[in-house]
């Protein structure tokens, strides 16, 4: 009776479909998080080009800024802002998983760690915005 040995040689290897990330909400959100880095990378390249234009003088800088006023670039920046916010949120959300905070021998609940992180992020963002607007 050697049937099991014969069967073993006929394992079926399922293939993962290219659409695996549409199967489950968490997979989809993960892919969105990964995709966010593409937009942030493009934004940073634009920022570098902007700095280069600034170095070339006022005229080059004004031309560059005019170009950014086109609807395409405005849409891009709105999308990039959304992704930057989403990426930051996921970052702080995951931080509480990675960093175990202990106070008085007890572990601080992870949601509280996330909340504190997000709170500090918001406060710092407001401070930077105020500095930008009034200094």
């Amino acid at each position, binding site marked *: 009776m050697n049937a099991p040995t014969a069967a073993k040689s006929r394992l079926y290897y399922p293939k993962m479909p290219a659409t695996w990330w549409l199967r489950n909400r968490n997979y989809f959100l993960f892919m969105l998080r990964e995709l966010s880095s593409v937009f942030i990378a493009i934004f940073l390249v634009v920022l570098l080009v902007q700095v280069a234009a600034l170095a070339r003088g006022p005229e080059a800088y004004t031309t560059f800024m005019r170009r950014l006023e086109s609807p395409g670039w405005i849409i891009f920046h709105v999308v990039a802002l959304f992704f930057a916010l989403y990426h930051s949120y996921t970052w702080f959300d995951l931080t509480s998983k*990675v960093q175990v905070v202990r106070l008085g021998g007890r572990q601080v609940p992870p949601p509280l760690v996330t909340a504190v992180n997000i709170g500090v992020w918001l406060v710092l963002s407001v401070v930077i915005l105020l500095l930008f607007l009034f200094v």
Partner: protein
Amino acid sequence: MNEPTVTLKVTRYRPERDSAPSTQAYTIPYRQDWVVLDALNYIKDQIDGTLTFRWSCRMGVCGSCGMMVNGVPKLTCAAFLRDYYPHEIQVEPLQNFPIIRDLVIDMSDFLQKLRSVKPWIIRETEKPLSEGEYLQTPQELEAYKQFSMCINCMLCYAACPVYGLEPAFLGPAAIALGYRYNLDSRDQGRKERQPVMASHEGIWECTFVSECTVVCPKDVDPAAAIQRSKVNTTMDWFKSVLLPWGER
């Protein structure tokens, strides 16, 4: 009187005659207190004795009865029919693994990976029995206890798209168990585990999808174990570069 019924659509794969798996539907009596595993046993006992699946303890301890229930990795002994009734229930073998027959997958890859992280206490030198046992404080136990709850059910491997796309990945449970022994105050084997744990196919392959943690029936949180291992390994690297006496 008409008895309520429920339909299970079960994956069948008979290697001696099938070239690929197919689905077979079984309609069985619905019982409110039945789990999917009870339904499978009813099918095997009353309808089709050829249906093949693994199970043992029926109480969420042995980790044998993991399957995909409506596309989600579950212990079938803990998946109640009432949570799906009156809809059909799709039962498939754990995804990301080769299928041996019907709902039975080949777990040899996982077992080999589990062994590779040396999930046991390693001592540089064993102390003699006469000196007694290795004592541990409740705090020292607490440090690793969560990660020691793993029952090797492999639901985390079925949930991990990284393992699905890159089968060389060491995977959630093996890393969580390696980490569990690294955290154990009685253990001195971290350096021995590092070549496997901190390899490219180890912790660094993980992209932190976190689905392993979502499906874990024992709240082990393998995703956290992997990320914390990454932090520790990075700290090792910084120490070895910045401190002349730093060790690797």
